[in-house]
């Protein structure tokens, strides 16, 4: 009797351990990929950024330690597209991303709320509102936008509205300061670029909205809350986890499309300066991570996240 009990106990433990081992086997492809395609390149990039990389006689690479010289070169270098210094492009991109990310997230939340309401023609509205998933591909956006400028640019598809009317209207009929007016008109002129980024986020928000328990709304109605209060007291707090996800997704996506990333290739392979290119990669990487931490910090101040067992 005793022997069998011990035996079954032993078997059970080994079963659980087997399960863990099986689980690790399932993770194995990703783990190998993580080491090969993530850790190794990451370490190498950081290594290259402190070295001058040249080609050796036998076809390999030679590394010469140069300290921080690559980084100082980087901030003085001019970028490929415009004759601007890198530092300028860098700050511009960061400001752009910090301006556009909240706008995209709020806009997609708005779209999701609109298509979540029951009305006639909702199916059609959903089809159109999710089109940016397809239309927002970088290739498609690049292809649709016109390349030729000129004074008859209206004849083709232009990414820009005529915003002077909007600026005049806002300046004359509202009491907004000039900065705010210019910001709004900037948003309006970039509306197609912004909209083309919203597809997936709208989908995420809509899924989140539909997962909210209906009875909560009923209770709020019975208690006498109006739609405004329902939105701020129920919808938004329950969406906070999702908005965090949408925010991070948007943020990463914006960085993927920023022009900094194309510069990396330009520095490394067109200018044949792998050291500076790697220094740029490192700066870019830390930029993303620091911005993200900043974003999370701001988010944690603004909204209380539901730290459940999620």
């Amino acid at each position: 009797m005793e022997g069998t009990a011990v035996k079954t106990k032993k078997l059970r433990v080994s079963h659980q351990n087997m399960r863990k081992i099986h689980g690790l086997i399932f993770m194995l492809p990703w783990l190998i990929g993580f080491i090969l395609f993530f850790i190794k390149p990451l370490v190498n990039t950081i290594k290259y950024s402190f070295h001058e990389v040249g080609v050796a006689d036998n076809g390999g690479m030679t590394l010469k330690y140069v300290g921080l010289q690559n980084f100082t070169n980087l901030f003085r270098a001019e970028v490929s597209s415009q004759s601007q210094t890198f530092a300028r492009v860098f700050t511009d991109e960061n400001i752009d991303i910090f301006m556009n990310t909240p706008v995209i997230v709020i806009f997609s939340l708005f779209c999701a709320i609109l298509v979540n309401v029951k009305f006639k023609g909702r199916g059609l509205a959903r089809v159109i509102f999710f089109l940016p998933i397809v239309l927002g591909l970088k290739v498609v956006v690049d292809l649709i936008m016109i390349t030729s400028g000129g004074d008859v640019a209206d004849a083709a598809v232009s990414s820009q509205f005529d915003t002077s009317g909007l600026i005049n209207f806002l300046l004359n009929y509202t009491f907004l300061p000039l900065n705010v007016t210019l910001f709004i008109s900037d948003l309006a002129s970039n509306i197609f670029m912004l909209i083309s980024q919203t597809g997936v986020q709208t989908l995420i928000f809509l899924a989140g909205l539909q997962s909210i328990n209906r009875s909560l709304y009923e209770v709020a109605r019975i208690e006498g809350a109006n739609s405004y209060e329902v939105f701020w007291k129920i919808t938004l707090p329950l969406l906070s986890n999702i908005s965090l996800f949408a925010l991070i997704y948007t943020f990463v996506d914006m960085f993927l499309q920023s022009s900094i990333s194309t510069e990396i290739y330009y520095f490394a392979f067109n200018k044949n300066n792998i050291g500076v290119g790697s220094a740029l990669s490192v700066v870019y990487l830390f930029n993303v991570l620091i911005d993200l931490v900043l974003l999370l910090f701001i988010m944690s101040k603004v909204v209380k996240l539901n730290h459940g067992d999620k």
Partner: protein
Amino acid sequence: MATSEVKTVKRIDGYVLKDKLHKFVFGYLFYSLVIGLGFAIIYPLIKLLPVVFNNLEDLGNPDVIWVPIKYSTVSFQAAIRLVFGNFVPMLQSLGYSVIIAIIQIFVCAIAGYSLGRVEFWGRNLLTFLVILSFVVPPQSLLISQYLSFKHFDIFGIISAMHGSTIDLINQPYTLYLIAFFGFGVKQSMFIFVFRQFFKGLPKELEEAAFIDGCGFYKTYFRVALPNAVPAIMTVAILAFVWNYGDTYYTGYFHPDGPYLSNKLMTTFSEANVQNILYAIKTWYAVPGATTFSFDAVKQAAAIIYLLPLLLIYFLVQKRIVENFEQSGIVG
């Protein structure tokens, strides 16, 4: 008596009227918002149509904006001749996207299952690493990834067996390799989606399977995976669309491949404007072709490129939302 009755009726009328007005005003505002936003989203597409069907010589003519004077399909013909050829490249890139999507689903599903369900050692650390690899943009690792693919070696094993390192750049299987090891287009996000989904799946299903005598793998393939259809559908759609439109991995790691997205980007790059204009002028006898004609051809190419995506999108769009909702990204 009579007067009071009239009064109540009047009061009800007023209430109904107010309610109706309320509904009308809000309905009006709501519909105008929806229609306005919808219009803003499809405006670029609407604006394309008159351009691509226009006679090439009339482009840039300020008299012709919305309704072409002469219709022609020259831009489509030029686009097909320049990029699409006999549509084999399109089939190839569609096939490529499907295969990559399947690989991504397979790898991400097993990794997600393991992260969501199995309590192995260091699981939280691995989850954190998955999120980290989602957050770090792949471009920042481009240079050393490129170099390590150029002289590919796994801890010296390959050079010991093969004599030298192998060049993986411009090999068709490089992209499949990247996808198989979990670092394709936004693959970390897919792992996360699967993790969330499997976490929400009821435990009883697996326990029942275990009692009935299923091992770990049988449980996964017979019980967990068939129940994961919503997550699989979501990931499949996104993976397919993103791989079809991907220019990063295809462009850097297999630049000579038959991928349409890549081909379109190089054909219609700004350096190529004059060549394409020359080609259009000689092929279709349009001496008056300007840069507007270049844009028209480019946009016609974009429409042809989008057609399969739009077709698939309209077929599955009804299921996208419900799948996404169930796919557990919400939790």
